[in-house]
């Protein structure tokens, strides 16, 4: 049973993906699985442990379940300075 997700990309991820957002159809159960799938597909250089993830505009743990229609954002390290 595939889910349809809305994924947005920022900064490094946006440049590596070559676009700012897309619809993704996936069998991934969690945010972590989704990222690994997309990383393999698009060659993202950042490992998940360097990122945080937000689902429907709230920070979530990587193990959070993702549901059909969710909006997912992977958050690269911020400048911090």
């Amino acid at each position: 049973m595939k889910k349809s997700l809305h994924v947005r990309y920022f900064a490094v991820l946006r440049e590596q993906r070559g676009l700012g957002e897309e619809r993704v159809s996936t069998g991934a159960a969690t945010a972590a699985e989704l990222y690994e799938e997309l990383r393999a597909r698009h060659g993202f250089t950042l490992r998940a442990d360097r990122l945080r993830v937000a689902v429907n505009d709230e920070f979530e743990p990587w193990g959070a379940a993702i549901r059909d229609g969710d909006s997912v954002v992977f958050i690269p390290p911020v400048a911090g300075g």
Partner: protein
Amino acid sequence: MAFRMTGSPIAPAALVEGFGDPRCGGLAFFEGRVRDLNEGRAVQALEYEAYVPLAEKEGERILAEARGRFEILRAECVHRTGRLGLGDVAVWVAVAAVHRGAAFDACRYIIDETKARLPIWKKEHYAGGASEWISCAERDGPAAGTTR
């Protein structure tokens, strides 16, 4: 809203003008500006990209934390997105309190947390055309987002 993201220039003079409270005796302000050098490289411009809905939620949470931790009356923060030139204001923080100690402590808390937690990314453009995403990634290992 006390916290906001904006794509337009931040004008601290106008913001200072409108900020205050009759009960307050101490006001602390912070301005973060684009400077000409970062880690020895000549910066010409800077680009802030933000995940706005989450940045605004997290920004409001930071202000609420500051109001809970320190004896303050008002706190505001404005953060830029988009392309900025040298000297442009990237972030502005204002705190009003009865006494100055709380105003300073809260102002510093807000800017520290803002820089650490908000989903906002900074790309520096250098003399000669190179540019680079500034992030922890650059400090830890291979420059993940470097494009030269």
